[in-house]
């Protein structure tokens, strides 16, 4: 499986790359517009501030090829900010439009709980999920974020709760995304990546 890993300077690119290679994928890390336009399978990692991600996508003219690839049905996996970027905008950077694949706005989790939401949490499945295939219910995944997308959309396959419910697993045809970090989530996380590679093959 050939995976094109979009490298715009996010901190978790090396660990995502390592996790995919462990599963036997051929990984090319790039920020090249043409390579991303021609990719057969795309992974958009991300961690940190959403303005860094959106700003970097614009700086490398990647917004258009990524949107086109998703609309063409190229298998795509967004991780953490890579999930949040799929919505219209984020409260974290209100003036920067995100990729806008799905309606809705990413908002900050409530102050009633400790933020960032940092550590291992479980998921609530909302429908059959290809990414979560053969993962036991009650498995923990590693989260590190303060902002999250709404839980209610049709694209939601599983949710998580910290102060409020939010989308944790997004699936629509060949478009996948997770709010947690599969590359840091032990065996359960590796299974999610394996399931994505299988769905993309």
């Amino acid at each position: 499986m050939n995976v094109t890993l979009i490298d715009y300077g996010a901190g978790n690119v090396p660990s995502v790359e390592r996790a995919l290679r462990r599963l036997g994928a051929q990984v090319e890390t790039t920020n090249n517009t043409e390579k991303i336009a021609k990719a057969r399978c795309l992974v958009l990692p991300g961690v940190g501030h959403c303005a860094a991600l959106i700003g970097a996508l614009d700086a490398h003219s990647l917004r258009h090829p990524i949107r086109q690839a998703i609309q063409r049905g190229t298998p795509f996996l967004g991780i953490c900010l890579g999930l949040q970027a799929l919505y219209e905008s984020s409260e974290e950077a209100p003036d920067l439009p995100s990729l806008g694949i799905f309606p809705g706005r990413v908002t900050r989790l409530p102050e009633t709980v400790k933020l960032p939401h940092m550590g291992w949490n479980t998921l609530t499945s909302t429908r059959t999920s290809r990414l979560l295939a053969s993962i036991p219910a009650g498995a923990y995944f590693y989260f590190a974020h303060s902002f999250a997308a709404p839980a209610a959309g049709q694209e939601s396959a599983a949710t998580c709760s910290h102060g409020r419910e939010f989308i944790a697993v997004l699936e629509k045809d060949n478009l996948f995304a997770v709010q947690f970090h599969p590359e840091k989530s032990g065996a359960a996380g590796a299974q999610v990546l394996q399931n994505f590679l299988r769905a993309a093959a």
Partner: protein
Amino acid sequence: MSLAHRIIPCLDTDGSRVVKGVHFEGLRDAGDPVELAARYNAEGADELVVLDIAAARDNRPTFLETIRRTSEQLAIPLSAGGGICSLEQARAVVRAGADKITVNTAAVQCPELLSRLSAEFGAQAVVLAIDAKRDGDHWQVRIRGGREATSLDAVEWARHGVTMGAGEILLTSVDRDGTQSGFDIDLTAAISNAVTVPVIASGGAKLPGHFVEVFTRGAADAALAASIFHDQIQSIRALKEFLRNAGVEVRLPC
């Protein structure tokens, strides 16, 4: 179900080897960081911390290599620190494979460092390590590996550090560190209740009951220990089973 309480083994290194000592002194060799990392990853550790505690940090390339080799063994998050005092050094640590940067003395000397790190890597990647020592009815912040006193109050400093951009506090009791007499519950609760970010309690762990106490009365979000894991006094799996039976939510890996 909610967020699990984390168990975090800590590897104090001299750059390349794991070392340990009591009250930050009398260091002795405790093994190879890469081997220990692989073992803890397999045993169900939730995260790993690697620190360079060598007094003269003249061997930074060796430490970066240790981070690189350690992170290769891990499918869990890695924090790294020890003597980081610039954005450039933090970048090198992140490029070597760390998910989080731990800062201590440099943040006391220049709190703006926290803001700069947070702006570049996100608050979730910035861990403010505080070494606190009881002084009458409050706790004093100590720097340079606990050796040097400051005029800062630990609770005030923790609050300020969060305002400046820290996303997590790694709180070490200088009084308890290395004594295996239990975490400083009062200190941990005071800091955890004062800040809006997760707190990792450190210093004094030995018995499983110490961990139950720090997660309940101490309100810690995570607990860190070193020698009890290195010396196999306590296995991470057995500790987590004990915690679960005591009603503390933990992640038991399948």
